[in-house]
């Protein structure tokens, strides 16, 4: 097990090094002269040359790469062009709101997707199964930015059921100020027992979470269905049936048991994927997270900020996959012996 974990970690370190090199290459793909952009439109040739020297662009690419790697490792991710703040501190401010949104969405996706997958597997090729499969495919075919706009229009503009934007009603800040601990507003309101704020944050979370959950929910329903159909014929499941367990337990407890592993692996994959989807959703709901920050950075042609967010999400993605791989190997010895 330790050998497996060590190999897996070594591989992840290699991949992270590669990710850093790739983001460096993308940063250097920028058409035009970064020094000229930095110096501004009215700079003289001498000022551009000075800027080039200041930015270190006159050094050979290999040296630039090394200093970039050193900078990233030391926590220097560059300065955002549009907020004028260090990129890493911007990410630190924005990340909790996004992590909160994605976590809520994934919880929702599991709560809805797993039962749907089980029901589809219970009566395969029936009308219900076909409907659930079509629904699951609809979920993975959804342009999330459009779904966000439509839900906002229907549920807040027209029906006035749910708030349209933001993380909570701003008026509450005067009556029930929110103490910041984790940066995730729902959690902060809950642990400080700030109930009016808690209610407000929850209702604000509903629409964006549904939108982000659409894709993972469809995926999970499909995976659960396929896995359960795969294991339902196996002897240990038949045994449970022979022992007189009701069909509901045979599916939900015994056949489902083997499906949790692929579901967990999918959640790790989809976590990174959903973080990227927040780029398309947060701006619509005015959600102050990484997605809004990334969308604003892209619109402002803010390369350091855009690549900073890219790097951050790639790192989260690699680490999440690493953790799931190791946890799965710990649970299931067949994986580490493969």
């Amino acid at each position: 097990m330790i050998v497996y974990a060590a190999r897996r970690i070594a591989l992840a370190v290699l991949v992270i090094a590669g990710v850093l090199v790739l983001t460096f290459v993308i940063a250097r793909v920028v058409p035009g002269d970064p020094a000229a952009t930095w110096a501004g439109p009215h700079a003289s040739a001498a000022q551009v040359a000075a800027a080039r020297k200041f930015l270190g662009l006159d050094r050979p690419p290999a040296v630039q790469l090394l200093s970039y790697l050193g900078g990233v490792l030391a926590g220097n991710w560059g300065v955002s062009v549009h907020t004028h703040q260090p990129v890493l501190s911007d990410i630190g401010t924005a990340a909790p709101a996004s992590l909160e949104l994605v976590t809520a969405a994934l919880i929702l996706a599991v709560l809805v997707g797993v039962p749907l997958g089980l029901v589809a597997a219970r009566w395969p090729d029936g009308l219900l199964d076909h409907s659930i499969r079509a629904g699951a495919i609809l979920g993975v075919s959804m342009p999330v930015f459009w779904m966000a706009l439509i839900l906002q229009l229907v549920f807040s503009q027209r029906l006035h059921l749910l708030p349209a934007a933001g993380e909570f009603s701003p008026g509450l800040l005067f009556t029930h100020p929110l103490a910041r601990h984790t940066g995730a507003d729902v959690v902060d309101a809950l642990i400080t027992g700030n109930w009016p704020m808690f209610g407000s944050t929850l209702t604000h979370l509903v629409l964006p979470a549904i939108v982000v959950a659409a894709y993972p929910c469809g995926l999970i329903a499909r995976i659960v269905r396929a896995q359960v159909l795969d294991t339902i014929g196996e002897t240990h499941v038949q045994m449970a049936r022979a022992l007189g367990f009701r069909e509901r337990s045979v599916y939900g407890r015994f056949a489902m048991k083997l499906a949790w592993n692929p579901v967990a692996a999918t959640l790790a994959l989809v976590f990174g994927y959903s973080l990227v989807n927040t780029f398309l959703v947060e701006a619509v709901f005015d959600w102050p997270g990484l997605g809004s920050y990334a969308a604003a950075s892209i619109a402002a042609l803010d390369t350091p900020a855009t690549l900073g967010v890219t790097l951050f999400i790639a790192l989260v993605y690699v680490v999440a996959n690493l953790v799931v791989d190791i946890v799965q190997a710990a649970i299931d010895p067949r994986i580490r012996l493969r």
Partner: protein
Amino acid sequence: MIEAPAPLPAQDSTVPRGAVLRRGIRANPLLVAGAAGSALILLVALLAPLLAPFPGDAGTATHPLLVLRPPSAQHWFGTDNVGRDVCSRVLYGARISPLIAVIVLLIATVLGIPLGVMAGYFGGWLDEVIMRVTDIFLAFPPLLLALAFAAVLPTSLTTVIIAIAITWWPWYTRLIRGQAASVAGRPYIEACRALGISRWRILVRHILPNSITPLLVQISFDVGGVILTASALSFLGLGAQDPTPDWGLMVAEGQGYFTTAWWVVTFPGLAILFTAFTFNLFGDGLRDLLDPKRTFL
């Protein structure tokens, strides 16, 4: 070690292949629906100039007196912020998204297949190098890497295509490498080698054709994914620019008038959803039909 031969699928030899196929299709109504929908979109793309009530509105036309009109008998989907017929623009949009998907998948296959086959067949250091490079690309969620490339390149449809293609090839390399490696170990490949057939000939004539089927299924399933990715890039302003009737761009443009003119956003978005949905149904059904063991992801 000698592997036991895999049991052949039970097949009634008196039933003709056509009947088996027909039965498969009847058991898979989603495939039929997907195929019909996909065909419909291709038809719309082909016939857009004939179907669109105002073909000129797909381009730079402006009608200052017809701005943001709600859907009516004349303008089924209403008009946009410069008075263009949304219906005509949506119909013309069918020429853009599927075309982007085809070009992206073509580039990704042309890059991905040779690398994957070589890695799988030759193995050794070449395999290591190619696979570690794909590992790096696969460490990014696909939309993220495409976004990063598109954000630093000049905004255009070509950029969208390049950015997505760069992101997409490693998945194909990875898929075909596994197939090629398993085919390379089979006895008939050894027999080829014993007959003195050159390595490249074995690679092209024997390994490639025998490892490509799962890839074809995956490609048919990816059309919807590429369309969604491309529309997301356009929505963020990284793709097509204004007069182009690109669905993602149309949603982005209508966003500002959304509360008063819902139709400008709704219909192009529905077109994206419908297109991605039918292509995904088709790919999903195809996979079920050809490869019943791999029923997810």
